C-alpha cells in the first residue's frame, strides 16, 4: 500500500521529468553547440504553451493548434538566434548570456501583455483515465506523457545520427569553421538547432499543460533553470544524459514535495530549491556531469577569429567614446552631490537619487568581482536580501542601532560571500554564473519559506534609523546617509583595486595559470573578491531596509541581480565611476518609463540585447583609464576557460 503510493509518486515524477527532459535537450544542444546559455528557453516554452492553450480555447482542433504552436516556438527560437546570437557570434558567443536574458525578459513581458498574468486553462489532452490497483490509482496520462517525450527524443536522436542535416549539427558542434570547410551551411544549421530546440520545448509545454491543466507566464523562468540543471547533470551536449537527468529531477522534486514535509519538515515551497541544490552539488563534485560529456570539451568553433560584423563596426564608430578630463570628475561630482538636496527639494527626485546611490553601492561590489577579478557572479540580489533582512530583523526584534545593524549586515554578507566564492576555485567560469545565481535564489526561497522572516508577507515598519542622535526620517537625511555610504564604498574600491589585491586580481583576470605560476594564491584572492563584492551588496541591502521601511522577498528576485549586472556592463567593467553612472542611467530609465510600466521589463530586455551588440565595452568606458573593454574581458574569460578545458 505504502509502496504503491510511492510508485504512484514515481510515475507522477516521471511525467514532470518528461517535461524537464524535453526542455533540457533543447537547452543542452544549444549550449553544447554554441556555448550559449539560452536563458530565453523557458520563456519560449511558457509563451508557446499559453499560446496553444489560447488557440485551443478558441475552438481550434488539436491537430491544427499543436503544429501551429510548435511552429511559433520554433520561430521564436529562430528570432532569438537572429537577434541575440548571430550579431554577437563574430565578437564572442558568451556575451550572448546578457542578450539572451534580455530576450527572456522581452518574451515574459510579451506573454504578460498578450495573455495576462493569471494562469490560463489548458485542456487535459491526454485524458484523465486512471489505472487502479487497490486503493491507489495511477494516472494513465502520466505514462502517455512519458511515452510522447521518449518518442520525441528518440526521433530527434535518429535525426542527428542519420539525417544529413543532423550530421551537420554534430559537425558544427565540434568545430564551426572546419564544419563550414566541409560544406555544412553553418548559419542554416544553427538556425535549425534553435528551431528544433524551441519545438522540443513547446512539446514539453504542451505536456506540462496536459498534466496540470494550466499554463502561465511564470512557469518560464523555472523552466529555464530546470533545463539548465538537467543539462549540466546530464553532461552538457550529452542528449541522453540530459534526458535521464530531466526525468530524475522530476522524480526527486515530486518526492520532496510529497515526503519532504514528513521526513525533514521541508515545506513544499522548497520544491524549486531542489534543483538548485542538485546543481550546486554537481558543479562542485562532478562538473562534467553525471554521464561525462561528449561534445563540450571540444572547443566549439573559433568564429571569434573572423572580425566584427559590419553593423558592429558602424555602431562602434557612431557611439565613439565620450571623453571627459579625468581629474575634474571626482571633486565636481562630490560637490554637486553634497549640494544636491539643497538645490533640489523635490522629494520625488531625491528619492530617485537615493535609489541610484543604493544601487551604485551594489554595482561597485559587482565590479570588484566581475570587472576586476573576472569571476562571474549572478546572485547579488541574494546579498542585498541578506543585508536587508539582517538589518530589518535586528532593528525590529532587538532594537539595535542602525550602524550596528549595518555592520552586522555587511559582515554576514561578507561571510556568506566567502562561502559562495569557494566554488569559484573549482568551477569553470560560466558554470560559476549559475552557482552564484542558484545561491541567490536559495536565499530568496529561504526567506520566502521561513517563519521568522514572515515569508511572502515581508517585514513592515522597520524603525527610523538614528545615527549619533540624529533621526534619519526624511529624504534629505537618507540622501546624506546614502552619500556617505557610497563615498566610503567608492574609496574602499579605489584603495583595494590599487593595492596588491587589485594587482593580484588583475593577474588572475588576465591569465589565471600565469598568476598561479607567479606565486599568487589565486584561490584566496578570488574568495576575497567574492567576499568584498557581497559585503557591498549587504551594505546596499541594509540601506534599502531602512530607506524603504518595508521589505519582502519578491523584491530580491533574479531581476534584481540582472539589473545590477546591466548597470555594471552599461558603465563598463573595471570602471568604478561607470558603475555609478550605469546605476543612474538604469534607474533614470526605469523612472522615465513609469508611464508605460507594463513594458518596463521588455525595455530592460531590449537594452540587454542592444548593449552587447552596439557597445560591448560599456557606454562610458571612455572615462577612467582602468576601463577594460567588455569584449576584451570576455575574450580573456573565454581563452581562460578554453585553456582550463585543455588541461
Amino acid at each position: 500500500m505504502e509502496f504503491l503510493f510511492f510508485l504512484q509518486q514515481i510515475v507522477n515524477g516521471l511525467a514532470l521529468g518528461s517535461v524537464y527532459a524535453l526542455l533540457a535537450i533543447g537547452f543542452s544542444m544549444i549550449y553544447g553547440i554554441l556555448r550559449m546559455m539560452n536563458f530565453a528557453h523557458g520563456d519560449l516554452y511558457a509563451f508557446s504553451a499559453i499560446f496553444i492553450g489560447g488557440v485551443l480555447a478558441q475552438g481550434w482542433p488539436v491537430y491544427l493548434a499543436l503544429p501551429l504552436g510548435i511552429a511559433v516556438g520554433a520561430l521564436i527560437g529562430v528570432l532569438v538566434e537572429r537577434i541575440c546570437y548571430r550579431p554577437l557570434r563574430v565578437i564572442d558567443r558568451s556575451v550572448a548570456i546578457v542578450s539572451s536574458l534580455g530576450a527572456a525578459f522581452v518574451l515574459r513581458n510579451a506573454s504578460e501583455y498578450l495573455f495576462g498574468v493569471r494562469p490560463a486553462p489548458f485542456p487535459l489532452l491526454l485524458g484523465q483515465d486512471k489505472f487502479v490497483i487497490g486503493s491507489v490509482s495511477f494516472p494513465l496520462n502520466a505514462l502517455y506523457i512519458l511515452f510522447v517525450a521518449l518518442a520525441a527524443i528518440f526521433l530527434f536522436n535518429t535525426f542527428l545520427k542519420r539525417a544529413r542535416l543532423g550530421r551537420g549539427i554534430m559537425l558544427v558542434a565540434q568545430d564551426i569553421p572546419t564544419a563550414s570547410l566541409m560544406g555544412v551551411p553553418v548559419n542554416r544549421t544553427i538556425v535549425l538547432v534553435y528551431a528544433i530546440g524551441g519545438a522540443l520545448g513547446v512539446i514539453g509545454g504542451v505536456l506540462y499543460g496536459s498534466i496540470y491543466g494550466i499554463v502561465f507566464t511564470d512557469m518560464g523562468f523555472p523552466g529555464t533553470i530546470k533545463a539548465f540543471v538537467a543539462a549540466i547533470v546530464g553532461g552538457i551536449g550529452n542528449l541522453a544524459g540530459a534526458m535521464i537527468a530531466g526525468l530524475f529531477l522530476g522524480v526527486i522534486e515530486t518526492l520532496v514535495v510529497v515526503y519532504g514535509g514528513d521526513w525533514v519538515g521541508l515545506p513544499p515551497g522548497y520544491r524549486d530549491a531542489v534543483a538548485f541544490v542538485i546543481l550546486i552539488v554537481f558543479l562542485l563534485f562532478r562538473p562534467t556531469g553525471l554521464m561525462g560529456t561528449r561534445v563540450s570539451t571540444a572547443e566549439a568553433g573559433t568564429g571569434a577569429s573572423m572580425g566584427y560584423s559590419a553593423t558592429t563596426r558602424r555602431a562602434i564608430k557612431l557611439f565613439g567614446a565620450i571623453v571627459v578630463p579625468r581629474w575634474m570628475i571626482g571633486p565636481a561630482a562630490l560637490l554637486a552631490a553634497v549640494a544636491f538636496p539643497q538645490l533640489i527639494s523635490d522629494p520625488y527626485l531625491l528619492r530617485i537619487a537615493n535609489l541610484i546611490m543604493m544601487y551604485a553601492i551594489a554595482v561597485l561590489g559587482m565590479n570588484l568581482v566581475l570587472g576586476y577579478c573576472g569571476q562571474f557572479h549572478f546572485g547579488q540580489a541574494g546579498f542585498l536580501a541578506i543585508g536587508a533582512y539582517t538589518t530589518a530583523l535586528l532593528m525590529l526584534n532587538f532594537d539595535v542601532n542602525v550602524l550596528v545593524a549595518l555592520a552586522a549586515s555587511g559582515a554576514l554578507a561578507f561571510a556568506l560571500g566567502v562561502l559562495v566564492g569557494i566554488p569559484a576555485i573549482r568551477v569553470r567560469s560560466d558554470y560559476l554564473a549559475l552557482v552564484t545565481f542558484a545561491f541567490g535564489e536559495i536565499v530568496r526561497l529561504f526567506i520566502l519559506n521561513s517563519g521568522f522572516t514572515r515569508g511572502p508577507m515581508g517585514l513592515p515598519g522597520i524603525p527610523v534609523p538614528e545615527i549619533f542622535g540624529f533621526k534619519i526620517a526624511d529624504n534629505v537625511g537618507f540622501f546624506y546617509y546614502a552619500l556617505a555610504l557610497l563615498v566610503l564604498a567608492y574609496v574602499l574600491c579605489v584603495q583595494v583595486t590599487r593595492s596588491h589585491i587589485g594587482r593580484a586580481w588583475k593577474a588572475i583576470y588576465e591569465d589565471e595559470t600565469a598568476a598561479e605560476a607567479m606565486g599568487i594564491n589565486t584561490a584566496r584572492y578570488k574568495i576575497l573578491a567574492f567576499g568584498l563584492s557581497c559585503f557591498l551588496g549587504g551594505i546596499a541591502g541594509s540601506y534599502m531596509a531602512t530607506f524603504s521601511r518595508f521589505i519582502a522577498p519578491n523584491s530580491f528576485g533574479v531581476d534584481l541581480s540582472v539589473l545590477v549586472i546591466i548597470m555594471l556592463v552599461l558603465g563598463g567593467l573595471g570602471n568604478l565611476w561607470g558603475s555609478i553612472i550605469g546605476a543612474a542611467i538604469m534607474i533614470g530609465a526605469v523612472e522615465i518609463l513609469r508611464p508605460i510600466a507594463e513594458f518596463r521589463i521588455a525595455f530592460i530586455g531590449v537594452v540587454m540585447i542592444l548593449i552587447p551588440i552596439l557597445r560591448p565595452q560599456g557606454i562610458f568606458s571612455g572615462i577612467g583609464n582602468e576601463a577594460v573593454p567588455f569584449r576584451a574581458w570576455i575574450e580573456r574569460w573565454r581563452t581562460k576557460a578554453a585553456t582550463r578545458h585543455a588541461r
Partner: protein
Amino acid sequence: MLEVRDLATGYGQAEVLHGVTIAVNAGEIVAVVGANGAGKSTLLKALSGLLPARRGSITFDGARIDGAAPEAIVRLGIAHIPEGRRVFPYSTIEENLSAGAYVRTDSAAVEADREAYYRRFPALRERRDRLASTLSGGEQQMLAISRGLMSRPKLILMDEPSLGLSPIMVDRVFEIIQELNKEGKAILLVEQNATRALAIAHRAYVLVTGEVALSGSGKDLLGNEEVQRSYLGS
C-alpha cells in the same frame, strides 16, 4: 585555374594581407613560403571563404568566388585542409571521412572513395570506429588529408601539412602531395619547411608581412640567395 588579384583581408581593425596577387594553374603544385605571421594561413582562409575579402578579386575556373561562403566554395571544387589538422575529435574516423563528403549526394561513390582511402592509409581502416581524437598526429594528418579529398576537389589548399610530424611522416606527406599532383590535382601548399616545399613546387611565392615579395619557379627560389638567407636558414 585560380587567380587572385590584389587581395586584401584581415581580422577586426587589423589588415593582414595588403594586396596579394597569385595564380595556380591546373596540374601545378604552387608553394607559398614566409616567416611566422606573414599571413600564409590568412591567405588560405580568404581563398576558402572563411575570411571575407576586403579588396581585390578571387577567380576560380573563370567565376568570381570572393564573397562566397565556405560551403559554396567547397562545392566548386576547392578543399582547404586547415592548419593543425582540425579533425572532428568526437566523431569516429569513418564519420570524419563522411563529413568530408558532406556536399556529395552520390552515396555509392562516396563509399567507394572511402574504401580507396582506407586502402591507401590502412592505419585509418584499422581504427575506423575510434574517435579521431585518439589518433596520433601523423594519423590525424592522413585523416585530415583524406577528409579533404572526400569532396573530390580540383584544387587543394594545404596549410602546413608537415607541421609537428616525425621525419618519416614528413617524407610521407610530401610523397602524398606529389602523388596527388600526379593524379591531376592542383595544389596550393603553405609550408614552414620551405626547402622541402620549394623542392617539389612548380612555382612558388614568398610572402612577407602580407605582401608577395618574390615569386618564381620552385628551383629558382631555392637557389635565390635572399631566400636562402631569410627562410632556409643558411
